[in-house]
């Protein structure tokens, strides 16, 4: 029998829920058992009560966890009714979630220099990883971006890591380089000094990063997003087409070896 998902049911209470950029919120929840179980790259599947016609949970990545305080911080974009209801949660609000889901990033043993590339709401999982790598003494360079400067998240946090080079890009040039984040990422990769690349963001962005990493001969992992019903391997809806066949993002991902991804 394959191993069941590590996800368990956790009740949580909202500690804070604040807007950090245009359409993007930071949610801090109190969920002690979850906080000590999560690993960078894993996700949680959150129940958002308040509308009996919207039943499925919403899968979200997390940006940091504090095992001592028992808290987990999640950044989410307000894109539909569920996340809109979520953005109105006040401290003290209670709900539950299933997590941690899937497996996280797997930077190679002995990795000395890594590059993380995040786009839009794909920044949190790579920031989470960057923090872990930096604390393990890995030099981490970061390329990240958003459609515009007001939607950009993570600048302060990446700077706070105090290591490596930081490159910012926005589609409209209102912050950093005007254009896609893939351009500065490809430039850095061409320098050839990396052991590992991790990326999360729009499919087209990740596929370009993966291409550049492959040409540079660097191992690259990507965190993929799919429509998901259960999040623990029962429904077969979050499929990713890989060179090894169809794989569920919830159990075999959400982090995949980028060279194995066929459809982004």
């Amino acid at each position, binding site marked *: 029998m394959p191993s069941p998902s590590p996800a368990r049911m956790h009740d949580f209470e909202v500690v804070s829920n604040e807007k950090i950029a245009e359409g993007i919120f930071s949610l801090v929840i109190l969920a002690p058992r979850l906080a000590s179980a999560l690993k960078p790259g894993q996700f949680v599947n959150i129940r958002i009560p308040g509308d009996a016609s919207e039943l499925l949970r919403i899968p979200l990545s997390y940006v940091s966890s504090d095992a001592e305080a028992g808290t987990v911080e999640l950044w989410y974009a307000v894109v539909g009714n569920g996340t809109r209801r979520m953005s109105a949660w006040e401290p003290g609000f209670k709900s539950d979630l299933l997590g941690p889901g899937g497996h996280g990033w797997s930077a190679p043993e002995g990795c000395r220099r890594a590059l993380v590339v995040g786009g839009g709401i794909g920044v949190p999982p790579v920031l989470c990883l960057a923090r872990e790598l930096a604390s393990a003494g890995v030099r981490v360079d970061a390329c990240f971006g958003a459609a515009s400067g007001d939607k950009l998240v993570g600048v302060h946090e990446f700077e706070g890591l105090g290591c490596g080079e930081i490159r910012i890009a926005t589609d409209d040039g209102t912050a950093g380089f005007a254009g896609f984040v893939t351009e500065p990422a490809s430039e850095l990769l061409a320098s050839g000094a990396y052991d590992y690349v991790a990326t999360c963001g729009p499919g087209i962005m990740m596929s370009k990063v993966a291409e550049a990493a492959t040409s540079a001969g660097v191992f690259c992992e990507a965190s993929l997003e799919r429509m998901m*019903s259960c999040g623990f391997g029962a429904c*077969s809806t979050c499929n990713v087409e890989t060179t090894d066949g*169809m794989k569920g993002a919830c159990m075999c991902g959400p982090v995949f070896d980028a060279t194995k991804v066929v459809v982004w």
Partner: protein
Amino acid sequence: MAVDFGGVKMKNPINTASGTFGQGWQFSELMDVSQLGAITTKGCAAEPWPGNPAPRMTEVRGGMMNSVGLQNPGVEAFARDYGPWLADLTDAGTQVICQVAGHSTEEYVRALEMFCELTPWAAGFEINVSCPNIAAGGAACGSTPEGAAEVMRACRKVTDRPLFVKMAPVRIPEIARALEAEGADGLTVINSIPGMAIDVHTRRSKLSKPTGGLSGPLCHPIAVRMVWEAANAVDIPVCGVGGVMTGEDAAEFILAGACCVAVGMASFIEPDASVRILHELEEWAESQGVRDINELIGAFEC
């Protein structure tokens, strides 16, 4: 609470809808699966199927729509990888019904032959002639009395073990009668309902195909009506499926004539929903003042 679903002796009427409960092991750390009367495993064919491309799911008001397309590893890998856990579940008192998939009568027969040989622990088999998401087989052959009967006739020759048919939500009375005449031991009513969801901004389907299978509580009243039609049309038992979220939803199926009830989408949201629904159903049966749930099957009055 024990019921006899066409020769499958269930300790209580709660079953799981195929495709919503994996092969059971996915739930092993989230609930006590052995509390259920039965589970029905995800459809499996003689050879592995990749299923449809992404996206395979979109949420709709009051439910969801999927176009998974019966992704499965093939019966051999199914029996090898999941068989030991499912055999243990059977020993723990929960019956296992394996769903059989195919693109043609020959493929159903081949898959069923393999199941009969490789899954001695299975209490019975459910023939899926109603998947709305595959180009051949599925609903393409189960939506007429003739097509459904042909598959059932061929499968009946393979085994004496209990055989059930997962029915498409069309022409219930006549197809139910045709299946009974060909020796079906029971009927599972209903499979997901063909639907469409369009993103009006991109003008594209919200799934990778134009249509998908609609499921969840929005389907429940339709499923209750179809269970009632099936139960009135035939003498073989019916398993009610469609949007069961509470014990009262399950009770409606029982009153409409179902002998057992399968929980579907609810398990995605609340993995142990089936156990909660079982307890709520028990409370309801008690509130009705009966000693045996069988007294309530078909006890609906107009």
